[in-house]
């Protein structure tokens, strides 16, 4: 089964990632989230037409109900073929599964088909200026419009990836005015193209602008677009984060391997491969990548009897790959050396330089390294929780 699937993906990619889609080959990876958005949306529709989106979703919602192992095969072959970063990721991998589990029938019917078809793209509105690691400190307000039952949202989200090229945003907001922390939150799904919303791209370290500030000034979420109940916001927000168990990271590892190959190639060309310390670091990176693969395969296990055994590894995985990748960025630059100075020219160098500039973000987004360690210590090792301070 999986060999046949492997071949099917390979053949399909070879046939379709060409012609007008050829410029997307190996693009939109780390630090390049904002390149060629329109062409990438078309590519999502091409994938959808080939039935390659939402592979793990149930068939009644247009998925293929593929097992984790089969989805891994797809991810690996997609990346091996140089498939571009997925515009549809937030819809397919995050909000889609959340709607499947918590949505009403009406919400499923309205939101899922456009995600599957590559017609609706989503952004994630969690972080705020005063709510980063401390996500419970959300201040964006949602007030109920008694006439319509709709929710009117005021406040600011920040670091919102791809908001400027998305159609919808899911927003964690405070629905009960005097509530604090995780209580009193609401999970809203909102159209981005409306009068009360202003999106300002934020220029990034690498020159591009993949994330944004999103300002809400009485923007409207329809009454029927609340996911869960009022007050369930935190529960749903956390459930959403739980769906990302790492299937896509196996595809990501393919691009890590490609990056390491580029480093090796350049090291052989410019003589860095003869320096003992560089040799050891390249070897160490290689070993870490091999371990990452086995770790991902363990983390993806669906064996219920292995749950206890895997709990700590699940909590360790993000820190492991993010830290590995950040170190790879530094290694790449040390191998390139002074030759790294000109940004123009060799596309390999450009890719590695972007990687170097973006990998520091790997240890920040999706829970910083320090937060990962806190959770691993507290939940995984049963150590005492961090005390909360009194400043706001």
């Amino acid at each position, binding site marked *: 089964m999986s060999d046949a699937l492997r071949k099917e993906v390979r053949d399909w990619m070879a046939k379709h990632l060409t012609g007008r889609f050829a410029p997307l080959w190996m693009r939109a990876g780390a630090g390049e989230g904002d390149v060629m958005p329109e062409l990438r949306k078309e590519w999502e529709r091409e994938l959808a037409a080939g039935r390659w989106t939402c592979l793990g979703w149930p068939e009644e919602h247009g998925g293929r109900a593929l097992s984790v192992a089969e989805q891994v095969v797809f991810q690996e072959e997609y990346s091996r073929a140089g498939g571009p970063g997925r515009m549809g990721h937030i819809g397919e991998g995050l909000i889609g599964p959340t709607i499947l589990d918590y949505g009403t029938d009406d919400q499923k019917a309205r939101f899922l088909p456009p995600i599957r078809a590559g017609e609706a793209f989503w952004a994630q509105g969690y972080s705020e200026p005063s709510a980063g690691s401390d996500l419970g400190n959300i201040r964006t307000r949602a007030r109920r419009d008694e006439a319509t039952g709709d929710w009117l949202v005021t406040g600011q989200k920040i670091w919102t990836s791809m908001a400027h090229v998305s159609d919808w945003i899911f927003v964690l907001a405070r629905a009960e005015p005097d509530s604090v922390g995780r209580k009193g939150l609401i999970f809203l799904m909102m159209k981005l193209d409306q009068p009360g919303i202003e999106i300002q791209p934020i220029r990034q370290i690498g020159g591009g602008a993949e994330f944004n500030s999103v300002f809400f000034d009485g923007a409207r979420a329809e009454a029927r677009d609340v996911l869960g109940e009022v007050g369930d916001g935190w529960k749903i927000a956390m459930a959403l984060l739980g769906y990302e168990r790492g299937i896509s990271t196996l595809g990501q590892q393919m691009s890590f391997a490609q990056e390491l190959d580029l480093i090796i190639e350049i*090291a052989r060309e410019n003589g860095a491969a003869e320096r003992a310390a560089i040799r050891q670091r390249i070897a160490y990176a290689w*070993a870490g990548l091999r371990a*990452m693969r*086995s770790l991902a395969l*363990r983390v993806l296990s669906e064996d219920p009897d292995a749950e206890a055994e895997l709990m700590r590894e699940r909590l360790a995985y993000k820190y492991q790959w993010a830290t590995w990748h950040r170190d790879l960025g530094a290694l790449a630059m040390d191998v390139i050396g002074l030759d790294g100075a000109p940004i123009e020219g060799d596309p390999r160098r450009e890719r590695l330089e972007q990687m170097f500039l973006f990998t520091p973000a790997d240890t920040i987004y999706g829970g910083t390294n320090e937060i990962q360690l806190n959770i691993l210590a507290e939940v995984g090792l049963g*150590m005492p929780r961090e005390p909360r301070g009194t400043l706001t």
Partner: protein
Amino acid sequence: MHLTLTPDQRMIRDEGARFLAERASSEKLRALIEAGTRWDRDLWQAIAAELGWCAIAVPEDEGGLGMGATEVLVLMELSGARLAPVPLWSTLCLATPLLLALGAGKARARLLERIVAGEAALAVALGDPGAADGGAATITARAEGEGWVLDGIAARVIDAEAADVILVPAVIDGGTALFALERDMGQEIAPLETLDATRPVARLTLDGVALPGSARLDADGLTADQMTRALDMAHLGLAAEQIGAARAVMDLTLDYIAERVQFGRTIASFQAIKHRCAALEVDMAEARALALGIAAEFDTASAEDIAGLRVLAGDLARKAAREAIQMHGGVAITWEYDPHFYFKRAQATAALLGPRDAHLERIAAALLDQGDAA
């Protein structure tokens, strides 16, 4: 391939852990060392004869249990966790795979039977146990009449004192042969003082030692390839011990810091401490996953993967022991507390079969010096 243990493997682990918790305590280890005893004969008896651990990796058609590298990994983690002073690694991970790699032969089959029955502890007189490839044989052999005569010194033989039979690779006619050296054949075994008192090492001197014709185990030479295959399992076994030892010393540290109070709170509540425990846990996850991945496809595992495992597992064990000492504070510098056993074992094991930089260089050479990249 999900790399989780099967119910049978979990059962082996749980029963083994229960057994060792009773029979291989650190009090017992300390008493043995203080008495100058270099290995635990009773424990070995129980492991080999009662539990039959030495039979697991021998194929069924050779009389064994026919299990795989994952079961070996599980058992070696357990014995590593307890620093069990028994010749398990030498017998299970070095000598047995060497005999299996050798192919057919009557003397070899007889020896395997003894291993399976738990009647024989084995050691291997590697030319250099500090080298990743075991080094070149330092003993020479010549034919004399119906038998053989062996000469030379193997400077450091792990578990030589405990072994009923020492496998001796010896140079003969330009090639290498493998001989079985039973006890009291005229060899001299001189115990060495070493850093790690939980793994005995001795110098083996053979001065014209005469062996019967049946002592030669190979049919037509011991090849480098056979040796490599055996050493792969030896490396996996050491890595498993290192991972098991790291787990144990991390667990005893977590227990200690959950109790010890300073500044009106447990030291486990300090974030500096929590983060370092968690970071170690990440290293643990990484090394253990790699070990399980290699064990699951052991027959096709690459030399580079095995080298990488030794690096990660070796780093893990040393860091875990060092952190354990730091987090225990002054008591860790005493003989009475356990961390120092792990500290010494971690350092000594990292040097066994190749130092860290040699493992990395082995990977680097494959990636950087030849043909196509990774």
